[in-house]
């Protein structure tokens, strides 16, 4: 059947051939991930007060980004996939934000007094 690519191929630069990363990239990403895991555990001994969670989440996000970019090939793939990933996380953060906003202001702003 006749088929033209005008619309589908507009954003699929890699169609027909797949991007492959060099073997070493996988290994070094893995090494970095392990290193970051050690950092996570090490850093948990210190008390940064309110920043404890932030630091832990920061490192976790770094790790997640590495997995996403290299293991899941986001860095070389169609950008649409990154949009899907980042978009869904974005909506999640907003879901948390609005609910949290209610949680922290509920006592102070809805006083029975």
């Amino acid at each position, binding site marked *: 059947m006749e088929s033209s690519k005008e619309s589908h191929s507009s954003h699929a630069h890699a169609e027909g051939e797949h991007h492959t990363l060099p073997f070493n990239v996988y290994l070094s990403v893995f090494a970095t991930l392990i290193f970051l895991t050690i950092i996570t555990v090490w850093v948990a001994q210190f008390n940064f007060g309110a920043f404890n969670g932030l630091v832990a989440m920061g490192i976790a996000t770094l790790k997640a980004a590495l997995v996403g970019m290299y293991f899941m090939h986001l860095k070389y793939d169609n950008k649409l996939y990154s949009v899907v990933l980042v978009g869904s996380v974005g909506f999640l953060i907003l879901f948390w934000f609005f609910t949290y906003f209610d949680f922290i202001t509920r006592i102070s702003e809805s006083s*029975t007094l």
Partner: protein
Amino acid sequence: MLGFIFSSLFNLIFVNANASTYMPFQGTELSESIDSLYGFLIITSLISFVLLIGGMIWFAFKYKRRTDNDSTPNIHGNTALEFLWSFIPFVIFMIVFVWGIIIHKDMRNMPKDAFEIQVTGYQWGWKFDYKSGVQTNGEFAVPVGVPVKLIMKSDEVLHSFFIPAFRIKQDVVPGIYTSLWFNARTPGDYQVFCTEYCGTSHSNMLATLKVMAPNDFENWLIENSKVKDLPLAERGRLIIEKGTCVSCHNISNERKIGPGFAGLWGSNREFADGSSAVADENYIRESILYPAKKIVKGYANQMNAQNLSESELQAVIEYFKAQASSNESNKDTSMNLREQ
């Protein structure tokens, strides 16, 4: 034909457009300001509706298809119009939004020196506790012209306290206290509804608010605390009739959600599991405090444990007793009771 339908509907809407027609009585100042916001909303909506639907109907008939190959202009849009009909609604929306939060702020800002009443919602009724120790059920009174604050709680499920005439409503949430305030300006009886679904008798979870002149209110308080001086059986009758019991039971022997009360005392009760017992003090006590233990034959296990105090229990039991003896001596008493 269609035009006729549309226009008659139009009339219906127009006639009903008077903001104060269908809103309940305006029992507070706040309810007046809410009604004016409501009026503004109705008028702006009506204007938009008339423009829009009027335009639609007009176009529909004006540009009715004449021939099968009518040609139509190729209009793609118009930015100025697009702007206009997003901007104007936007402005209207912002006006009502700001107006709305101004009112809402008044509604939620509790007055400092208000007369406080503790409210408990339970399945299915409302209890009111006054600072003086007066306790009522299903009915409460406040003085006119005084800011009143309700502190509300529930032990089991969500309820919601709604006084239509005051346009105020607040959910009663287990685990937190919520509050409401109002300043009633006209004496009279006002309806209270439960507006958060709470099970079988949600629609019977009503209460009456009595707004009274200060003097009457004082009397009411005294009267209600005097209940303690009434004869036991009389107090029992009050508890049953003013409480929630009558939402499920009849004073007569007619069945409602639960069995009727007439002739209960001393009779032999048969239960769903085949056992039976005589209705004595302990049976009645158990039926009220632990209703699930013995289920009367032919009924469902729908009664919730009623938390009556020891003295209230005594009074209720005494009432059943008295009812039975008056039944023997004079059949008319129970008839009288039924009518009350």
